[in-house]
């Protein structure tokens, strides 16, 4: 029999190994917030074939048309062959002037996308996001405590599920920070949607394992808690992996063939889903065991007696 619970501290260590670099990046570079949160304007342009201006040239044109200082204008090509210009908030008349200037210089420039968000809206979005995550966590914790009311310490299951959920949020947010630095990812309103979906799935996964523990606790009374949890994990392992596989299939299909504007969204979901399955098996259930045995009492006292680092 595979012993997952016995190696729980190794799995916690693996989680930390993934989370800590992300958190360090978060502390150093922060999150690459998009204009949805910070306010500002974004123009996505498709230039006629052959026109390949340098960023400096673009910035020069935009600066002349808008009167914004150079520091407020950024231009970069996207992976889809379009050009993205970001500036501070811009009104319609200014946007029209920019397009006019670009068309005068490059001919038939197509405006694929234009967004301009005021700073107050951005602040509201951020606040709304935090409220939503907090609300979702509390609601799920309450529901789980209710759903597991027949087993002893029902509250622990809610807390363990939320801890696993926070683990997944930490993984995804850390990844967003790193990818923001490396690949120029942006955290936009869709990222928030992705995080909330991941929360939903993470709990979904934890519940399937917990449900088995609930069932086995009633069936094998008197067995050590640790063994029941381990047995439950193994019993649900096939299902966890198969569900994960089907999700990965659909997400990879969306990633490869889906709309380019949601590619980051899908990639975020993919990372979160994998983390979600991992955390429900290797974190959420073991946390229950740690809690049951109150292992924190020996964490710092006598390291010699600890089973694993």
């Amino acid at each position, binding site marked *: 029999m595979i012993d997952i619970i016995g190696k729980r501290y190794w799995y916690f260590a693996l989680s930390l190994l993934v989370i800590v670099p992300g958190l360090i990046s978060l502390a150093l570079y922060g999150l690459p917030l998009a204009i*949805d949160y910070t306010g500002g304007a974004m123009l996505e342009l498709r230039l006629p074939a052959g026109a390949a201006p340098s960023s400096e040239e673009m910035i020069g044109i935009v600066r002349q048309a808008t009167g914004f200082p150079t520091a407020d204008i950024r231009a970069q090509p996207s992976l889809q062959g379009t050009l993205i210009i970001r500036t501070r908030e811009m009104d*319609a008349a200014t946007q*029209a002037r920019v397009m006019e200037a670009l068309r005068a210089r490059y001919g038939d420039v197509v405006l694929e996308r234009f967004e301009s968000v005021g700073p107050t809206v951005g602040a509201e979005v951020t606040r709304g996001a935090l409220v939503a995550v907090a609300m979702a966590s509390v609601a799920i914790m309450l529901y789980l405590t209710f759903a597991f009311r027949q087993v002893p310490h029902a509250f622990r299951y809610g807390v363990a599920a939320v801890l696993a959920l926070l683990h997944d949020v930490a993984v995804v947010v850390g990844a967003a920070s790193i990818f923001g630095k490396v690949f120029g990812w942006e955290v936009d309103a*869709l990222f928030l949607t992705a995080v909330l979906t991941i929360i939903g*799935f993470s709990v*979904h996964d934890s519940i399937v394992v917990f449900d088995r523990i609930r069932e086995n606790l009633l069936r094998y009374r008197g067995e050590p808690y640790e063994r029941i949890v381990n047995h439950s994990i193994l019993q649900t392992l096939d*299902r966890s992996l198969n569900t994960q596989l089907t999700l990965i299939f659909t997400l990879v299909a969306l990633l490869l063939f889906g*709309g380019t504007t949601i590619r980051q969204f899908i990639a975020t979901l993919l990372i979160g889903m994998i983390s979600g399955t991992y955390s429900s098996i290797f974190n959420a259930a073991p946390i229950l065991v740690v809690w049951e045995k109150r292992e924190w009492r020996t964490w710092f006292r006598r390291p010699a007696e600890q089973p694993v680092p």
Partner: protein
Amino acid sequence: MRNRNLWLALIGLLAVLALWVDFTETRIEIGFLGLQREIRTVLGLDLQGGIQILLEADVPPNQLVDRGNLEDTRRIIENRVNALGVTEPVVQIAGTRRIVVELPGVTNLEQAVNTIKQTGLLEFVDAGATPIPEGTTIRTSLDLPITGTAPVTATPSLAPTPSLTGTAEVTGTAPLSPTEPVYRTIMTGRNLRSARPQLDEFRQPEVAFTLDAEGTRLFAEYTSRNVGRYLCIVLDKKVISCPVIQEPITQGQGVIRMGFGGTLADAEALAVTLRYGALPVPLKIVDTRNIGPTLGQESIRRSLIAGIIGFSTVALFMILYYRAPGVLAVLALSLYTALVFAIFKLLPVTLTLPGIAGFVLSIGMAVDANILIFERLKEELRAGRDLAMAIDYGFERAWPSIRDSNISTLITCAILYIFGLNFGASMVRGFALTLAIGVAASLFTGIWVTRAFLHVLLDRLRPGVHRGWFGL
């Protein structure tokens, strides 16, 4: 037995109905129910291309916006937008102080913004020695496109007329009815730079205004010559107020005193009218989004391909891994897809890119219920139960985890939906709604439909044999 066939017939009927809805674009009318509904796919702006503008009441953040005023404002904007000739414009109140305008298919942002922000025509007219009562509709020397089929002549004036926009078109050929005086327009709202309410040194309310260069010149010239006479403020040919000129205004700055009994609220209302024309609630643009039509089409095409590929891989996996039940699950999944899309068209749900992502994702989730059940089924079979028992146990034992996990997903959807409006864009809501519909539908197809299918298959099989069909 009979019961089972009834189930199958119902499922079949549902499938036919769903497919019919999926592949028709029509209007249905069910007379005796008074039901009328257009069946069609509603595409969001990100798929169709178009413009979204978020307007916010331009008042201090702590000041409440009157709901009725906001609704009036919304209606005025809707009228203005309708003039653009857009197929299906959406003008909605969002929250307590915002209005969302969505213009599908429109590409010219500047034109759209100008249409929305266009103010009523504000004129300052020369009323001569007697004030005109408030609310009177008058004719002015400035020709309006709306009423202006008949050319108008300027009233003869003793003072040399400064050249005004609009008077250039005066032809003087059409005779004027003698009963209707035409008042001379000094300047229009275009020349007004700002207007705000304030209290004077005696704590009397007044509106302070400033003019641009042209306005300053026009006003200086006119007021110097007409002290003691009346100047009327006219909005869309309707007199709003007729203050008397107390002294010449030459520096482009002046005040309109509200007079005896005037309140600060009156001053505020007048200032708003001066600044924004007819809108009861002053608005500013806080968010604009513009999606080109090609990007939208490309997104639809790609989502479709992704959906087909995602569906096929999941189907292939299920059949290879779970064999006979897998085939049934794929059948149930096809019904699921047809059903959900039919619901989208019937409600209707506006499909956005994240919405489609939520839908495709829910296909993956819909399978999860089946996987949970089939894994249980296999366990029961391994434990030596016969097929009929194993199927019943499998469903029964898998149910609590299916229920709890789906409820938690629905909780997340609900929170996303409730707070989605705060996230500025409606796409968060679209995602939550499609995911929630998907979860609900998957409970139906994943459990009841698959179960009915399994039992039908069982009736045709001799228990004990064909274990290989279940991937054992």
